[in-house]
C-alpha cells in the first residue's frame, strides 16, 4: 500500500490556499442530498457537525454521553493557542508553526502543522463571536498567558475552564443546527462498527445504550471525532467513558492506525493515592507560569517542605533547562520528574511525587492575584488531597493524558478508506511525537470549523452518493456486533472487566509508559495476549443486553483495549529511537535527552490490520522537511 498524504505543491505558506482552490465544491442545492455521520460531540465533532449543518448537509451526530455538552473536551483547563501576536512579543504564524513542529520532535508533517498555525487566528475570532467569555485586560482586549514549549504568550483562556467554554460555544452552535433541523443528534448511542461497502465507508452500527437496540445508519461520508485512547493505561486524566472502540473498529475494517506509541504523559497531575483510584486529575500546565517545580536534593528526605532550606532544594527544570525553566515541554518535564523519583528523591506516599511551589509567586504577586489566576485549580487540589496549596506546595506526578497517535489521515483529513474522515485527537496528524500545551483545543476546532467542511465537500463532489442501507454489508456488520455483545454477556467467569482493565493498565504503565525498553516491551507483548485470552474465559458481566448496562458497556471497551494495547507496544518496539513522548532508554544522549534517529525513523508508522492472530503490516509515510532544519531539540 502506497501512502499518499496528498500534500499540495508550492511554497509552505501557499499550500492551504492552493488546496482550497483545487477542492471541488458542492452547490448549495445539492448539499442537502448528502448525508454525513459525525461520531463524537467534543470540540472536533460538535464544531464539524455544526459547520456542516450550516453549509446545508444533512448531518447525524452521535455521542455516548447523555448530552453533547459532556464530551471530554470539556475538561481541558489551560487554554488555546493562536498566532495573534496581541502581546507584541514576536509571535507569528511562522513561529507557532515552528514551535509546534519542534515541540513534536519533528515527527509531524510540515504542511499540516503550518495550516494549523494559519487557521489558529480564525478560531479565536469564531469563538469570541459565539460569546465565549475569554479572559480580558482592563481595556477590553483579550488576555494571554504562556504555556510550555513557547517563549511567547499566545494562549487564550477562560479561567481554568477554557475547554468547557469552547465546547459550550460549539455545543450551542450545534444546538442551533439541531433546532433548525439540519443536524439530528443521537445521545447515549455508541458506535460499535464501521460499515465498509465496496471499499467505501458507508455507515456505522450503533448500540442504543438505554434500549440495547443495535441499528445501522447509512451515509455518504463518515467522520470520526471520538477522541484519544489514553484510558488504555487505566489510570489517566481522561474521563471514565473515553475509549478506543470507534477508531479500533474502523482500524479492523481497514483504516490504518498511525503512531500508536506516541502517547503523552502530562507532568502536572495529582499523584496516585491508592489502588482504589479510578482516574487521575490534571493540574493545568498554566500553573507552571508561576509555580516552581522542585525536589529535595537528599534521597529519602522525610522533612516537611517548609523545613527544607533553599540550599537543599533542587529546582531541577530550572537547573537543567535555564532557557525554558519550568515551562519546558511536557515530555521533558514528565521524564525529569520520573528521573528524580527513580533516584529516590520523590516526595509523598510511595515517593512518586515532586513539589509545585507557589510561595515565591505569592510573595511577588500576593495571594489574591494567585487566587484570581488559579483559584479553581487550587480549590480542586484541596478537595482531592485535603491539603491547602496556598500554605504548602502541591505534590504532582505525571499521568497519561493525551494520544498524539490515531488513525492515519491525509492532508484532507481522510483516512486510507474512502469516505472515512478522522478529526481531532482521534487522528494522528499535527502533534508529532509530543503535543504542546493548549494545542489540542486549537487542533480540534481547526479540523472541525475550518478544514473538514472544505475537504469533505471535495470528496462528495467527486464521489457522489454512497451505498444505501440495503447493502448486505450493513446486515453483516449488525449481526457481528450483536454476536459480540452476546459473547460478552455469555462469558461466565469470575473477574470483572474493570479488574482486567486495571491489570492491563498497570502492565502498560510499567513497560510502555514514560520510559520504554526492548526487554520490557517484549515482556508486555508476551503478557497481553495471555491476559486477553483470560479476559474472554474468565470475564463476568451481569445484567442483560436489553437495557442500560454499565458493566456491559465497560466490558466491550476493555475488550478493544486488550487488542489495541498490543499494537501500542508493537509500535513502541518497532520505533528504535527516542522522540518526544516516546522515550526508549536504549536511545539517549549522554545527558539523558531523547536521541532521535532521523535517518531511519523520520516517518509516520501506519499499521494495517491483517486479521486475528496475524501480525499487522507496517507501512511508512516518510516525512520530508523542506522549510526547517532538523535539530536536536534543545530547551536549555
Amino acid at each position, binding site marked *: 500500500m502506497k501512502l499518499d498524504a496528498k500534500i499540495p505543491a508550492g511554497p509552505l505558506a501557499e499550500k492551504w490556499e492552493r488546496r482550497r482552490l483545487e477542492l471541488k465544491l458542492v452547490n448549495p442545492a445539492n448539499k442537502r442530498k448528502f448525508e454525513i455521520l459525525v461520531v463524537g460531540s467534543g470540540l472536533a465533532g460538535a464544531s464539524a457537525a455544526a459547520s456542516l449543518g450550516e453549509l446545508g448537509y444533512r448531518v447525524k451526530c452521535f455521542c455516548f454521553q*447523555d448530552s453533547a455538552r459532556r464530551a471530554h473536551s470539556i475538561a481541558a483547563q489551560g487554554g488555546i493557542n493562536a498566532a495573534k501576536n496581541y502581546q507584541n512579543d514576536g509571535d507569528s504564524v511562522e513561529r507557532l508553526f515552528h514551535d509546534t513542529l519542534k515541540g513534536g520532535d519533528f515527527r509531524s508533517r510540515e504542511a499540516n502543522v503550518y495550516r494549523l498555525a494559519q487557521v489558529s487566528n480564525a478560531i479565536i475570532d469564531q469563538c469570541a463571536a459565539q460569546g465565549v467569555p475569554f479572559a*480580558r485586560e482592563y481595556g477590553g482586549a483579550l488576555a494571554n498567558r504562556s504555556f510550555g514549549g513557547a517563549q511567547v504568550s499566545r494562549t487564550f483562556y477562560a479561567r481554568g*475552564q477554557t475547554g468547557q467554554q469552547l465546547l459550550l460555544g460549539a455545543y450551542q452552535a450545534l444546538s442551533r443546527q439541531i433546532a433548525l433541523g439540519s443536524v439530528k443528534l443521537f445521545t447515549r448511542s455508541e458506535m460499535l462498527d464501521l460499515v465498509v461497502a465496496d471499499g467505501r465507508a458507508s455507515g456505522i452500527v450503533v448500540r442504543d445504550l438505554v434500549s440495547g437496540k443495535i441499528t445501522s445508519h447509512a451515509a455518504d461520508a463518515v467522520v470520526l471525532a471520538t477522541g484519544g485512547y489514553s484510558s488504555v493505561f487505566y489510570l489517566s486524566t481522561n474521563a471514565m467513558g473515553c475509549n478506543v472502540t470507534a477508531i479500533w473498529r474502523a482500524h479492523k475494517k481497514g483504516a490504518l492506525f498511525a503512531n500508536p506509541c506516541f502517547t503523552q504523559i502530562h507532568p502536572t497531575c495529582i499523584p496516585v493515592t491508592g489502588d482504589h483510584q479510578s482516574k487521575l486529575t490534571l493540574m493545568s500546565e498554566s500553573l507552571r507560569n508561576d509555580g516552581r517545580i522542585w525536589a529535595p536534593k537528599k534521597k529519602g528526605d522525610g522533612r516537611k517542605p517548609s523545613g527544607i532550606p533553599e540550599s537543599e532544594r533542587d529546582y531541577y527544570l530550572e537547573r537543567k533547562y535555564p532557557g525554558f525553566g519550568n515551562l519546558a515541554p511536557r515530555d521533558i518535564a514528565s521524564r525529569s520528574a520520573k528521573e528524580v523519583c527513580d533516584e529516590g528523591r520523590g516526595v509523598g506516599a510511595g515517593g512518586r511525587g515532586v513539589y509545585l511551589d507557589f510561595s515565591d509567586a505569592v510573595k511577588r504577586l500576593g495571594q489574591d492575584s494567585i487566587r484570581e489566576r488559579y483559584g479553581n485549580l487550587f480549590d480542586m487540589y484541596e478537595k*482531592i488531597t485535603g491539603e491547602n496549596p496556598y500554605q504548602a506546595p502541591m505534590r504532582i506526578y505525571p499521568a497519561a493524558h493525551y494520544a498524539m497517535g490515531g488513525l492515519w489521515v491525509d492532508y484532507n483529513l481522510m483516512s486510507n478508506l474512502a469516505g472515512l474522515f478522522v478529526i481531532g485527537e482521534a487522528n494522528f496528524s499535527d502533534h508529532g511525537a509530543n503535543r504542546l500545551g493548549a494545542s489540542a483545543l486549537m487542533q480540534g476546532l481547526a479540523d472541525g470549523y475550518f478544514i473538514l467542511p472544505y475537504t469533505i465537500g471535495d470528496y462528495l463532489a467527486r464521489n457522489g452518493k454512497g451505498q444505501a442501507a440495503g447493502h448486505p454489508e450493513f446486515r453483516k456488520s449488525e449481526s457481528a456486533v450483536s454476536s459480540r455483545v452476546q459473547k460478552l454477556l455469555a462469558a461466565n467467569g469470575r473477574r470483572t472487566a474493570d479488574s482486567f482493565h486495571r491489570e492491563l493498565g498497570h502492565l502498560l504503565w510499567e513497560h510502555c509508559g514514560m520510559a520504554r525498553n526492548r526487554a520490557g516491551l517484549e515482556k508486555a507483548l508476551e503478557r497481553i495476549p495471555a491476559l486477553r485470552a483470560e479476559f474472554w474465559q474468565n470475564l*463476568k458481566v451481569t445484567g442483560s443486553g436489553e437495557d*442500560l448496562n*454499565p458493566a456491559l458497556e465497560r466490558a466491550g471497551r476493555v475488550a478493544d483495549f486488550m487488542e489495541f494495547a498490543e499494537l501500542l507496544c508493537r509500535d513502541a518496539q518497532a520505533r528504535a529511537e527516542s522522540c518526544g513522548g516516546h522515550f526508549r532508554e536504549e536511545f539517549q544522549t549522554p545527558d539523558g535527552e531523547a536521541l532521535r534517529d532521523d535517518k531511519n525513523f523520520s516517518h509516520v508508522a501506519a499499521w494495517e490490520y491483517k486479521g486475528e492472530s496475524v501480525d499487522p503490516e507496517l507501512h511508512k509515510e516518510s516525512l520530508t522537511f523542506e522549510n526547517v532544519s532538523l535539530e536536536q531539540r534543545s530547551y536549555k
Partner: protein
Amino acid sequence: MNFKLKVWRQKDARNKGGLVEIEAKGVSADMSFLEMLDGVNEELIQKGSEPIAFDHDCREGICGTCSLVINGIPHGPERGTAACQLHMRKFKDGDTIVIEPWRARAFPVVKDLVVDRSAFDRIIQAGGFVSVNTGSAPEANAIPIGKESAERAMDAAACIGCGACVAACKNASAMLFVAAKVSHLAELPQGQVERGARVKKMVAQMDREGFGNCTNQYECEAVCPKEISVGVIAKMNREYRQS
C-alpha cells in the same frame, strides 16, 4: 471505613423503584464518593448481581454528568462540589448514606440513579446561542469587552448543566440553569442582537418541559457545584420583562 448505603434501585421508567440496603466495606478516606460506589459495584458483579447504574464521566467536576442526591442533598454535603469530587473523608465511619436520583417530572428516571436530562438540551436548542455561522466572525479584538463584564459573563457561563438546581428545588424549577445561560449571553455585546427573542424562547421551552416556577427558595444556589448566584435569576426576570 464501613457504611450502610440505602440506594434507589429502579429497573426503568415504567417500573416503580425503592431503596435497597447495601453494605460498603473497607472504604478508604481518600476515595471519592464515586470510587466508593465503584467498589460496591465490583462486589455486586462478583456476586452475580447487576451493578448500580449511575451517571458519571470526567470525575473532575466539570462535565456535569454525575447526578446523585446524597442524604437528601443534590451532590451531597460539601458546598460547591459535584458528587465526583466529594471524598469519603467527609463522612464518619459507620454512617448510613441514602443515595437517590434527581427527582423532577422533567427528569424521568432511566434506571436506578440515572435520569433523562434532555430537557436541558432542548432549552438550549430553543435559543441558548449566538447565531453566527462559521467563518463570518469579525476580528476578535475588534469588539472590546470590559474586564468586569467578561468576568460576570464567565461567572454565569460556568454552569455545568448538571441539574442539581432542579433536584434541590421544591418546585423542580430550572430557573437557575436557564438564567445562567440568558445572563451569560445578555452580558456580552455578541449576545445583544437576539437578546429579547432568546429569553422569551428559552423561558417558553422551560415551561413546556414541565419545570416548576421559582418561589425564591434559593435552594438551587445552595447546591450548585459551581456556586452560581441566584442574582442571574433576577437578571433573567429583568430581561424577560424588557423583551
